[in-house]
């Protein structure tokens, strides 16, 4: 990536922190600009403050955390932040005991083998002293605990069942939503099997902003807050999103500056770009707004989502499939619609 991509329209700007010549900015070029050192520090601070504000690691007994790596720039960034935080010898050391989970979503055997080989290389570069597991999202199909092995991609035997379930869903919007739900279910299954109650996912602000709008269009407006903010607490499982305040742009700049961009795993997926789904429309909508220079859209959506909650939620009752708060039944209305569009294959989870 060329550094000039990030340094357009400088116009003699100064760093807002140290008065050096500014080179980089976050999402909105009308707002703060930073020099290289201050930009790196700003990004790191956003990661640390997301964790410290919620006091997630206050409890000394529950420091074991599953850190998810999906090969994306955000995933690589998260791994590096954890690696960096563990190497600190001062009070800045993050009190976390990580277990890395490489989450694979491709279904071709050769691609999966390539991922396993790439992970072996990565293990030598960072977090070498922690446990690493590779698992396919098809682990979501297990109803009992998963026996995880360290040297292979776990859950590949469930890929046919997984793809059958997804292809049985006749509505593209619900198929994509089901994919998201199964990914979370997979993480929950693996965490439970490893007896780890905390799970860090590399969901950045852009992903979460889009997710917020998608969920709004799926009728889950009241449950936006747990779906897109730092923590999503469930009965025996805590989903943590430590990079929820960082945009893809900020992460890409940081990765470029710190040479993390060599630690990505490029998946060769066959995504259908012609898919007529709510998720595809949301993506196009956000892109249009950004092209029209409405840079703060994502930030505003996430800020709004963090301030609202569900009017219906009573006694902590939750949907058995997606875990959003529900008033008086086991399935939320969106999951009921997903079930109806899945020709019965989803019933195993209900």
């Amino acid at each position: 990536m060329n550094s000039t991509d990030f340094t357009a329209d400088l116009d003699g700007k100064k760093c807002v922190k140290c008065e050096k010549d500014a080179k980089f900015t976050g999402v909105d070029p009308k707002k703060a600009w930073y020099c290289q050192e201050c930009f790196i520090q700003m990004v790191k601070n956003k990661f640390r403050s997301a964790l410290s504000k919620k006091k997630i690691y206050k409890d000394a007994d529950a420091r074991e955390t599953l850190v998810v790596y999906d090969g994306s720039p955000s995933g690589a960034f998260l791994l590096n932040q954890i690696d960096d935080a563990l190497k600190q010898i001062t009070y800045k050391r993050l009190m976390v005991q990580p277990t890395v989970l490489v989450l694979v979503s491709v279904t071709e055997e050769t691609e999966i083998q390539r991922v396993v080989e790439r992970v072996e290389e990565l293990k030598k570069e960072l977090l070498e002293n922690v446990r690493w597991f590779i698992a396919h999202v098809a682990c979501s199909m297990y109803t009992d605990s998963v026996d995880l092995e360290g040297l292979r991609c776990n859950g590949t035997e469930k890929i046919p069942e997984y793809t059958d379930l997804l292809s049985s869903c006749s509505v593209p919007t619900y198929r994509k939503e089901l994919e998201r739900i199964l990914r979370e279910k997979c993480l929950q299954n693996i965490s439970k099997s490893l007896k780890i109650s905390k799970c860090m996912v590399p969901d950045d602000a852009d992903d979460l902003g889009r997710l917020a709008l998608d969920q709004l269009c799926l009728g889950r407006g009241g449950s936006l807050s747990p779906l897109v903010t730092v923590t999503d607490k469930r009965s025996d499982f805590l989903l943590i999103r430590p990079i929820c305040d960082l945009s893809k742009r900020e992460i890409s700049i940081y990765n470029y500056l710190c040479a993390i961009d060599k630690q990505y795993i490029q998946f060769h997926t066959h995504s259908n770009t012609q898919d007529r789904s709510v998720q595809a429309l949301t993506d196009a909508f956000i892109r249009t707004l950004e092209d029209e220079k409405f840079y703060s859209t994502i930030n505003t959506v996430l800020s709004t989502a963090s301030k609202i909650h569900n009017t219906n939620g009573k006694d902590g009752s939750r949907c058995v499939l997606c875990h959003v708060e529900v008033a008086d039944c086991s399935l939320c209305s969106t999951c009921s619609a997903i079930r109806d569009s899945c020709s019965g294959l989803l019933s195993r989870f209900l």
Partner: protein
Amino acid sequence: MEKRRGPPPCQSKKGCSNPAKIRKAKDGSQLCGPCFSKNFEDDVHETIVNNNLFKVRKNSIQFVVSFSHCSFLQRGERVAIGASGGKDSTVLAYVMKTLNDIHDYGLDLQLLSIDEGIKGYRDDSLLAVEKNRIEYELPLTILSYNDLYGWTMDDIVAKIGKKNNCTFCGVFRRQALDRGAFKIGATKLVTGHNADDMAETVLMNVLRGDIARLERCTNIVTGEEGDLPRAKPLKYCFERDIVMYARTNQLEYFYTECIYAPNAYRGYARKYVRDLEKVHPRAILDLIRSGEKVSVKKEVEMPTLKTCERCGYMTSQKMCKACLLIEGLNTGNTDLGVRKSKKSKKVIVEIEGEKKEEGCGSGGGGCGCAGAADETENEETRKRLKDLQF
């Protein structure tokens, strides 16, 4: 030779044998013209019943309105129908009149129009309202921005340019409808907001971060805490179904988009909602459902409702938005009330500090009159608002 397929039979529950001509956007059912109209009217009546706009009891075949324990509308009370001449308000006026006759609501329905002063748009659409007045035999009252505020939208656009026009128009129209309803002695106001509008509003409030409005924007009745509650009987009706209903019943309406609207931010949300309806129609109702489920967390600070120091209209600030916008227009500071800038903040502080005693006196003050550059203009605005006794 393969037999050519004809239209499918009408899917009405009443066993109609006519060929289906219309696909209802809301649920995809295929219906013939008369069954579609009946189904649409039943939908609106059901919305009124289920949301307790009227207290009803069920009487074997049809609902009969019982006004003994009426929660929203009372028998004999005057209800203003916000009429712009567009498809939504034309259908609303027609449906309300039809349901009023069929179910004997016993309401005194009156049309209320606001003339924003947009040449080539509003003057033409008011002709459509005039036709409605004659056809539906409903009295019509027209109030203009010029009479109320001393500014037409054409004047405003000439002053501020083609950006933020909808901010001015939306704020002024809301107040103007309330003032008009008071003028004609109505105690309730019904508007033609449809499901697409509601979905768009939910989305807009999320995009703007307006959590206070997000919490209440999907309420079918708003303003119950004030003197003039508003209701949206077409809340669950899809825009496409409204158009089809108007066509089926040969209703005449004005269908040109406002000439100042294309530059609005809302346009992006509108396009998104329209695309959603094509790809996943249920998303419209799901967006409304999302809005209905939203509640603001306790720890979030919310604005409290007060009355405007100038005109007595409800507001969360010292001055209502309309007064603030007029102040900006009259003083040449057109950013006032539109965007946060140091200059506009300074002006607000000055207004609040120096001009508390001024104003037209209607409800404690008058919109913009106190800040008008020309003293004669102040007097005129003051007199206009006094006449309305708001």
